[in-house]
């Protein structure tokens, strides 16, 4: 039922954005993908703020309420970019995991 409601809300927001902002969105994808739905909500809110459109803002809020919160997210948190880059650099420079002592004190 929740999913049906989300599909319906996504469809209403799709129509509103098309009519008021000239933006075309993917309704099915909005109903399936949380990240895409959040981005559409952001665009709708920006447009609503710009034009003072309460209906558009209301629809954006309605869709956002149907999206999972941070606690419900199953995907692990992504470390900051700098940390990931630093970790990748260390791993690429270090010898293979099995070679940690291979070339210490001798080649053979």
């Amino acid at each position, binding site marked *: 039922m929740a999913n049906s409601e989300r599909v319906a809300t996504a469809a209403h927001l799709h129509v509103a954005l098309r009519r008021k902002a000239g933006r075309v969105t993917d309704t099915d994808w909005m109903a399936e993908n949380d990240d895409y739905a959040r981005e559409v909500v952001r665009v709708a809110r920006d447009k609503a703020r710009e034009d003072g459109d309460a209906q558009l803002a209301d629809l954006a809020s309605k869709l956002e309420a149907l999206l999972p919160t941070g606690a419900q997210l199953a995907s692990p948190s992504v470390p900051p970019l700098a940390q990931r880059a630093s970790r990748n650099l260390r791993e690429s420079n270090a*010898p293979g995991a099995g*070679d*940690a*002592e*291979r*070339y*210490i*004190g*001798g*080649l*053979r």
Partner: protein
Amino acid sequence: MKMHNTLGWMGLAAALMALPVWVQAQHMVGFDEIRGADTAWVLVSAALVLLMTLPGVALFYAGMVRGKNVLNTLAAVLGAACVVSVVWFAVGYSLAFTPGNRWLGGLERIWFAGLDYQLAAQQLSVSHMAVHIPEAAYALFQLTFAIITAALIVGAVVERMRFGALMLFMALWSLCVYVPVAHWVWEPGGWLARMGALDFAGGAVVHVNAGAAGLACACYLGKRTGYGREAFQPYNLGWTMLGACLLWVGWFGFNGGSALSADGRAALAMVVTHLAAAGGAIGWAAGEWMFRRRVSLLGLCSGLVAGLVAVTPAAGFVDMGSGLLIGAMAGLVCYWGATGFKRWLGADDSLDVFGVHGLGGMVGSILTGVFVSSTISGASGNLLAQTVAVVAVAVYSFVATCVLMWLTDRVTPVRVELHDEQQGLDITQHREHVGQ
């Protein structure tokens, strides 16, 4: 050959004193006395032996050092070849391969004087060592041996020796160590040759000599910064394999060419050489499997070189089965030499010159005395003579090398500064770096 009485010693002394005059007066022969096939083979062999150094040894070593020192290693080998060539031309050949006395030759051939080719007279000069080929061919062939012996030492000093100092050292070492040792072993009047020591192509003259010198250099220079604590990742073991394969093929000239004839003995020497290489690789691999449960590419390459080193003094004296056995035994011994024995020694012989060439040459020289076949060569084994030769060459090379390193250090510092070593010798010595 041993002299057992005073009359015999006096006779030999008289003969030796007369020889230089004989050589100077009789060194020209007619073109028709030269054997074309033998000459061609010796010339090809000279090219093969030079290929062993350039780029065989160069690639073999450069692949094993860290990426920041690759170009310096290549330059060191190339530079050594150039320096030794000039020294050999100037005075090295004369002091090594003219009769002189039991310790050193004379000056009859400085600047290759007397290596004549006279078209009008249809005559050319020959060496008393090989009267059937032009002396120029013989001198060139021996030059390539002098070059590779010096180049081998580079492996012990890489990653921390200043380039200029290394070139000066190479000139001094070639003149003061290689030349006398070559005279002792290969010139018939040399004291080790007279004792009966057998060294077909340079087990003692080249490999024991270079190995002992490498160890001396490593001791004098001290350990590389971070040695024993940091992993010194080889730059590219594919290069090392290419170098090892060039060494294998080139060694056909090294040993086969030492027959100085394109004949059955050269063919035998080449077959024995090949089997020893294979045996060496298998022997080393067996050692790795026993102790580490894995076989490495570097181990295969090192083992084949160990086998080639060990068979070098024996190639023209032993049969094929003995060649295979010598190679296999050397593979095992040199595996220990480059691992457990090296740790026991405690010296930072960077690329295991002593472990492979020094120990391999010692094993091969001793086993030559065990496996020599009188049927093949007419020579008989003399373990005492072989042992004396090995010890004498090793001790002289080690001590003289230490002295020469000390002398070189007085002229110009031999070791790079710490920050240069850390930055890498490619940039600090040559202002170049290998592409990423």
